């Protein structure tokens, strides 16, 4: 197997300092280089002396490898077919039952049982009833970790400066077996944020606007690295907002989407203690790092956005859209089911009634978010407005339970995707927007922005 020199680079303080202090490297190059496994000659892989560069294919040590209830069973089957009995390090393996929780039917229940049996056999981590990405953010992610998940939105953990990316089930099985995987070092697109949002505009509008401009493959294979023009701008982006942006960056193909570590990150990590022993390694791109592209987004220029139907890069301002009547409004998912999202929805729904032709479903992204929503009185607000408040799960986002769509139904949703048939019938239509726009639309029975409810 692999050998030598950089087998455990964390312990190689000199190497770590050389990489972190190298001004010519991007975040992605540094994050991969400090976890790079030195391998034998003539294997066909790059053997960087100190650091890997964009385009290199290297092998890395992985700090956390997760799968969920719709990708875990295939990973477990692949591991079994390979005849691998042992997991490399159970403390770095996380199984999450989140997509269809609690089980909606017998078939789902049987696959959930398969996951529980695997966890008890290997003594790895199991979470039921919080979305994996939110749980990872709340309890496990640390700056500088390499987190791989059999779920595309694993990239969310980039909001606290982890190198986090989605892969498939069988590759996750390989990581469980060896603790390692090959990665291609991505090129980086650097995006500097400036200004302030207008009323009714949020992080989700920003990322939808960006995806609308670059397209569904606009950042395919690339790292997105976000920065702020001033401290004032930085203060406007909470961890919840950053998580929304990192998560939704997947929809333009990004391999990772990272924010630098600052006081907001450190405060969040201090207030939400990690339950693992992963090291906190703060990584910043060097001042002379080479970027594929560098751009500036002026937040003041962004209007409330809506995406869809059928493709995420079909993005308009709500004003441009024209009249679209809706059957359902969904606030939830890993993209926009955090406490900040539930708070703005409660603010808009408070003392008002959901339109008689519209169902409104609110689904928190984790148990912790659920508890906080109860503590702050949001649940009463939803129920009084006529909305449904569900347990924490992916739920309606994947059309599996708790808000599936019938033939020709139309939904406005804060969830991740609007692809054909994702929430149910192939003839149903999904539009994506911020939780504020979704809540305002629930009140009016048609897609509208939230400006008038936020005076």
């Amino acid at each position, binding site marked *: 197997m692999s050998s030598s020199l950089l087998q455990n680079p964390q312990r190689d303080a000199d190497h770590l300092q050389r990489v972190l202090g190298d001004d010519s490297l991007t975040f992605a190059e540094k994050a991969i280089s400090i976890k790079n496994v030195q391998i034998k000659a003539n294997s066909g892989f790059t053997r960087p002396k100190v650091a890997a560069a964009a385009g290199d294919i290297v092998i890395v040590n992985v700090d956390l490898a997760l799968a969920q209830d719709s990708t875990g069973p295939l990973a477990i089957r692949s591991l079994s077919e*390979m005849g691998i009995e042992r997991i490399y390090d159970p403390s770095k393996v996380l199984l999450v039952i989140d997509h269809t929780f609690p089980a909606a039917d017998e078939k789902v229940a049987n696959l959930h049982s398969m996951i529980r049996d695997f966890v008890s056999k290997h003594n790895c981590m199991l979470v039921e009833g919080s979305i994996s990405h939110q749980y990872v953010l709340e309890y496990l992610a640390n700056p500088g970790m390499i987190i791989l998940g059999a779920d*595309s939105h694993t990239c969310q953990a980039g909001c606290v400066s982890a190198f986090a990316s989605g892969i498939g089930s069988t*590759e996750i099985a390989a990581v469980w077996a060896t603790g390692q995987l090959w990665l291609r070092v991505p090129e980086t697109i650097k995006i500097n944020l400036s200004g302030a949002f207008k009323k009714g505009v949020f992080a989700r509008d920003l990322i939808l606007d960006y995806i609308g401009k670059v397209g569904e493959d606009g950042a395919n294979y690339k790292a997105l690295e976000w920065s702020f023009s001033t401290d004032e701008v930085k203060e406007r982006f909470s961890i919840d907002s950053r998580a929304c942006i990192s998560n939704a960056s997947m929809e333009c193909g990004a391999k990772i989407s990272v924010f630098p570590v600052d006081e907001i990150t450190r405060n969040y990590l201090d207030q939400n203690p990690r339950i693992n022993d992963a090291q906190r390694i703060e990584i910043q791109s060097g001042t002379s790092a080479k970027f594929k592209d560098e751009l500036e987004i002026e937040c003041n220029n962004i209007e409330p956005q809506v995406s869809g139907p059928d493709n995420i890069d079909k993005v308009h301002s709500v004003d441009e859209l024209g009249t679209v009547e809706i059957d359902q409004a969904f606030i939830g998912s890993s993209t926009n089911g955090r406490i900040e999202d539930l708070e703005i929805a409660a603010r808009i729904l408070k003392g008002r009634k959901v339109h008689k032709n519209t169902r409104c479903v609110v689904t928190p992204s984790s148990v912790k978010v659920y508890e906080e929503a109860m503590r702050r009185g949001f649940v009463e607000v939803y129920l009084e407005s006529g909305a449904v408040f569900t347990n924490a799960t992916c739920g309606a986002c994947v059309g599996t339970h708790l808000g599936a769509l019938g033939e020709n139904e139309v939904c406005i949703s804060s969830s991740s995707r609007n692809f054909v048939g994702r929430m149910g019938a192939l003839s149903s239509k999904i539009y994506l927007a911020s939780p504020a726009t979704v809540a305002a639309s629930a009140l009016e029975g048609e897609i509208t922005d939230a400006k008038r409810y936020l005076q």
Partner: protein
Amino acid sequence: MGNDASPNVTGHTISKGSAWVFGDNINTDIIIPFRFKSRTNDPYEMAKYAMYGLDPEFHNKISNGDVIVAGRNFGGGSSREQAPVALRYAGVSAVIAESFARIFYRNAFTIGLPALEIPEIRGKVMQGDELIVNITKFTAENIRTNEIFVAQKVPEFMHQMLIEGGLVEYYKKYKRLPWIY
């Protein structure tokens, strides 16, 4: 897909079949919807929902060995490995696209579904054209036009893994992962 459908396995590095032509951004929700893939762990069951988002009867219409030809960003969205698995077990012998989404591309090699990135393929294949796909040479030939297209090269370990029929088959044969020496 008939009962005799058997996915491309070790040794079958040349396949011949009809082209099914699709456009850009064919995402994984189209290739297999969540509500079906999340209720089975059986690849032949997954195959019944291949391309369901565009045509729920696709699995009945295709013949073993047929080839999907698509535009940009094939396989975007979800990380679901069930997407390439459903195509492979439905009888699809290869997917040719102008470009692939990152996770689908990794998954295709991992599960042994040949994914050939051929940027100039747009307009060069019509629905029903007979294609010969050579996995060793990583080429596709359109019999109607006599044109041969060479796919973008991939690292040798990925190519070897694909030729063996994917990561599981590779591991069974060599007792090691293709990227660990």
